[in-house]
C-alpha cells in the first residue's frame, strides 16, 4: 500500500467524520448558527413556571418566534424570571401578555405570547408585564378535589 493512497483514504475518512458530526449537530440537534444580532431579549416574571425548561419554544398563535434562554429565581420578589430570545423579525406591543402553556395534556411546556393593542412595541431588554403562570396539574387536581369536597359538604348540610 503506497503512502499517498493511505493518505488519501485517511483524508476521506476524516472528511466523512466531519460530515457526520456536522450532520448530527445541524440536522439532528438543530444547532442553527444564529448571530446574536438576529434576536433580541425580553424577560417576564411568573409566579410559577411549572416544568418550563431552557430552550423551550416561545410561540405566538402557534408559530415559534423565539426560545427561552434563561430561568432564574429573582430573590427580591421571589418570582421566576424567564429570559426569552425573540427573533428580530417579530415585534410585539408593550401590552403583550405571556403565559406558560402545555402542548397536550402531558407534553412539553412552552411560552405563548398574545399580542396586545398598544401602538408602541417592546424594546430589547423590556419586561413583558402581563403574565399568567403554568397550570400545575397537581394543584389543579387539588383545587378540584377541595371544591368537590366543599360542594358535597354543602349538599349534605342542605337536605
Amino acid at each position, binding site marked *: 500500500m503506497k503512502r499517498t493512497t493511505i493518505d488519501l483514504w485517511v483524508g476521506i475518512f476524516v472528511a466523512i*467524520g466531519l460530515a457526520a458530526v456536522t450532520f*448530527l449537530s445541524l440536522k439532528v440537534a438543530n444547532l442553527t448558527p444564529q448571530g446574536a444580532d438576529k434576536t433580541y431579549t425580553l424577560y417576564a416574571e411568573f409566579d410559577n413556571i411549572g416544568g418550563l425548561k431552557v430552550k423551550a419554544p416561545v410561540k405566538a398563535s402557534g408559530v415559534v418566534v423565539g426560545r427561552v434562554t434563561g430561568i432564574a429565581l429573582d430573590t427580591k420578589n421571589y418570582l421566576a424570571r424567564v429570559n426569552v430570545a425573540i427573533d428580530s423579525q417579530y415585534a410585539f406591543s408593550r401590552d403583550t401578555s405571556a403565559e406558560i402553556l402545555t402542548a397536550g395534556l402531558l407534553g412539553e411546556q412552552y411560552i405563548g405570547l398574545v399580542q396586545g393593542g398598544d401602538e408602541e412595541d417592546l424594546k430589547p431588554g423590556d419586561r413583558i408585564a402581563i403574565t399568567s403562570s403554568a397550570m400545575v396539574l397537581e394543584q389543579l387536581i387539588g383545587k378540584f378535589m377541595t371544591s368537590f369536597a366543599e360542594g358535597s359538604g354543602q349538599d349534605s348540610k342542605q337536605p
Partner: protein
Amino acid sequence: MLDALLAPFARLGHWVIEAVRRLGFISRFLFAILMNSAQSLTRFHLVIREIYFAGVLSLIIIVVSGLFVGMVLGLQGYTTLVRFGSADALGALVALSLLRELGPVLAALLFASRSGSAMTAEIGLMKATEQLDAMNVMAVNPIARVVAPRFWAGVLSMPVLAALFNVMGILGGYYVGVILIGLDGGSYWSQMQANVDLHVDVVNGMIKSLFFGAAVTLIAVFEGFDATPTAAGVSAATTRTVVTSALVILALDFVLTAFMF
C-alpha cells in the same frame, strides 16, 4: 474436607490477585505509551497509517451495521409508539437511543472485534517473530514506534466511526419510518430536533466513544505486547482482547452514563 471448603476462596483470591496484577501492568503500560507518544506527533504519518488500518478498513462494517440497527430501531420503535398514538416521536426515539447509547457502544464493540483483535494479533506476531526484539536492538523503542501510533489511531478513529454509525442509524430509521411505513418526513426530523440537545446528547455520546476508543485500543495493544510469543499465545491474546474489551465497554458505559446524564 476443609480443603474442599476453602477451594472456592482460594480461587477467588487467585482471581482477584491476578486481576489487580493485570490492572497494575496495564496502568504502567498506559503510562509508558503516554511517555513515548512524542514521536507519534512529530512523525504523524505513523499514526495516519494506523488510522487507515484501524479506521478506514472498519468503515464498511460500521456503515452496514449502523444502517441495520437504525432500521430495526425504526421498525420496533414504530410498533411500540403507534400503540400510544405517538408514532410521530419515532425520529426522537431513534436519534436518542443511537446518540446516547447504541451508537457509541455498538460501534466500540464492532471496533474491538474488527480492529482491536487485528492489532493484538499483529503486535503478538511481531513479538513472536522477534520483530519487537529486532527493533529494540536497533535502538528503537517498540512502544514509541509500534504501540503508541496504534493507540492514538484507535483513540482518534473511534469517535469518527461512532458518529458515522449514528448518522447511518438515523438514516436507516428514516428509511423504515418514512419511506416504508409512510410517516411524515417533516415530523421525523422536527421531533428529533426538538428533543435532541447538542451538548447533552451529541457531545456526551462523542465523549463516550472517545473513552471507549482509548479503552479498546489500550486493551488491544497491551494484550498483543503481553502475549506469549507462540501461535497459541497470540490466539489466546486475541480472544482476550475481544472478551475484555466487550466487558470493559459495557462497564465503562454504565459508569459514564451515571456521570453524564
